[in-house]
């Protein structure tokens, strides 16, 4: 039997009717993001304190490095490569970076905050001077002078909320869709309706698509309110199209839905769904790169970060909102990764809707 859009539509209509009637969930969907934003908004308002400086250590220059690390105001983030540093600056998450290597010292500076750029440049000069005297006292005839090259990168002068806001949009959608979907599927089981579906012309694919369709309407509602609060309430820029942002969020929501459906198989009650939060939600919050750049996460955890959908959604939403990225700009890797995540878990969720309970 071919999948029928009509039957998926019947399921979608039912899901919408049910959610519409559930006042508390509607309230949560709409107001929880607002409350969350206000909390974060106050907690994170103001400029980021200190100067965030990336350090790519390619060897040598011990004195210069020691000097930079010793400066109280500098918050040093050790990075693996110059391109990492460049990207973080362009995303407004670093004020600058120093790349040390045998062939010289390169300084990357954010052109959007010249004051800080000046401070970093001065510190590097001072450090280089120390290095020079150190080498002279060590008795070297002709101290090789470190060649310092400086490059400006177009970045942002961001407040914390700007980097966190777009990610929170992804986070709330993921959280609520996951929980609501898991609960909905647990109910389908305990009510016996799932069993009845199995003995009807409705296929499992139609059922999952119906759910995705029905939930999407609420995802749109939720993202629209959250987007509104983030941009108008907290002044986070929205340089790209809201439609593009919505597309990212819808894809993320679809992934969260099938993930919730999949995990509903491992819970026996709605209460047990709540116990998934620390397992499924918390790692995403911690590791998706909202709070600190992924580049600073210990190397052995990093692959894990790159398996989490929120990592890609947060990255894509930041690009859309802060840099005005279009769909083409975030297609790879973000949309692709979200798409793959959705496909894998919809296959898993569909398979788990097995007939045999025992």
């Amino acid at each position, binding site marked *: 039997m071919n999948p029928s859009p*009509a039957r998926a539509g*019947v399921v979608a*209509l039912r899901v919408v009717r049910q959610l519409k*009637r559930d006042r508390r969930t509607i309230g949560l969907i709409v107001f929880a993001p607002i409350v969350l934003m206000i909390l974060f908004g106050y907690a994170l308002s103001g400029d980021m304190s200190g100067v965030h400086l990336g350090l790519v250590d390619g060897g040598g220059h011990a004195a210069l490095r020691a000097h930079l690390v010793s400066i109280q105001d500098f918050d040093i983030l050790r990075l693996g490569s110059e391109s990492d540093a460049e990207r973080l600056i362009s995303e407004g998450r670093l004020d600058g970076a120093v790349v040390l290597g045998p062939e010289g010292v390169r300084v990357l500076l954010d052109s959007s905050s010249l004051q800080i750029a000046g401070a970093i440049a001065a510190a590097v000069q001072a450090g280089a001077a120390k290095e020079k005297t150190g080498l002279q006292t060590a008795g070297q005839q002709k101290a090789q002078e470190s060649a310092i090259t400086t490059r400006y990168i177009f970045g942002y002068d961001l407040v914390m909320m700007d980097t966190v806001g777009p990610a929170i949009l992804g986070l709330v959608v993921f959280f609520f869709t996951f929980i609501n979907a898991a609960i909905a599927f647990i109910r389908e089981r305990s*009510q*016996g309706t799932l*069993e009845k*579906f*199995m*003995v009807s012309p409705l296929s499992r694919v139609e059922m999952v698509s119906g759910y995705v369709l029905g939930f999407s309407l609420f995802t749109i509602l939720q993202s629209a309110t959250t987007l509104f609060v983030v941009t108008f309430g907290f002044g986070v820029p929205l340089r790209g199209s809201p439609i593009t942002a919505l597309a990212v969020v819808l894809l993320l929501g679809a992934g969260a839905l099938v993930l919730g459906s999949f995990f509903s198989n491992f819970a026996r009650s709605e209460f047990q769904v709540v116990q998934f939060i620390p397992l499924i939600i918390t790692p995403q919050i911690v590791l998706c790169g909202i709070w600190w750049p992924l580049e600073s996460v210990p190397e052995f955890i990093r692959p894990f970060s790159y398996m989490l959908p929120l990592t890609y959604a947060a990255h894509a939403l930041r690009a859309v909102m802060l840099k005005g990225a279009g769909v083409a700009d975030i297609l790879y890797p973000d949309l692709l990764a979200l798409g793959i995540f959705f496909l894998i878990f919809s296959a898993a969720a569909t398979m788990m809707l097995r007939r045999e309970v025992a």
Partner: protein
Amino acid sequence: MAGRGMAREIEPAISARGVIKSFGRQRVLDSLTVDIPYGVTYCLLGPNGSGKTTFIRAIVRLLHLDGGEMSVLGRPVSEVDEIYSQIGYMTQHKALYPDLTVQENMEFYAGLYGLKKQQRVARLEELLEMVDLSEHSGRLAGALSGGMYQRLSLACTLIHEPELLLLDEPTVGVDPRLRQTFWEYFGRLTQEGKTVLITTHLMDEAEKCQRVGYMRAGRMAAEGTPEEILRQAGLRPILKLWLAEPERDAVLLRAEGYEIDVVGGVVQVRLESHARIKEVLAAVSPLDMRLAEPKLEEAFLRLSEAA
């Protein structure tokens, strides 16, 4: 139509041959063999845990069998997915959405089976009438009483006019008057050639069915028409006779080969069949008499004790 009629004579609507199903080490269906003909109301009776629900779930392939063979509406059970639109399955859980109204629940199931708008409206009206919920169509299913909930579930199961109805304890909590309506409705369905399989643990419901299967521990302890089951259990109608000279007549009747008990001066004759009543009355002339029909319930008790 003629060809279909022929097939129906040859093949039963549901046929199970040595069906085996275990959950872990517990064997729930133990070489179950039974034929359920087309166009009857078949009552699957048995105590809780005897495997009735498991059997129904096996029919619709919600379970994989560990052994045996089964066919449903002329198809091997492995192909039953393809005829789901001809089957109406009412689960023991009743499978409704408590947060949808009566009407929304029915519309949802009508939609799943692809009923067109016009057809749906007519069908909804008819069924709401039958289950006596017309006045409550706007109420949330979750706010219905147990019996109403049950009735709504039945209506949702009937919505697509299935050929084969599998009803798992459909009358639990339904009041006697409405239960009567249900049975009349089932009677009409079977007259249209539809097949109705009902499970129940209420003995008195079995007497309303054309065929009865009594399950115990995953097997058919007894199977057939109600009369056949009574005979299998050795239960016969009893003719009670009040006689002027009971002792003398008792001797007389015994001599003619009747099974006689004399209880408190009343002579009780166990009849092989109702046809023998005439012969008894030719031999003796009672002052008064009464015929006591055996109860299916007693038959099942006997059969399960024997098993």
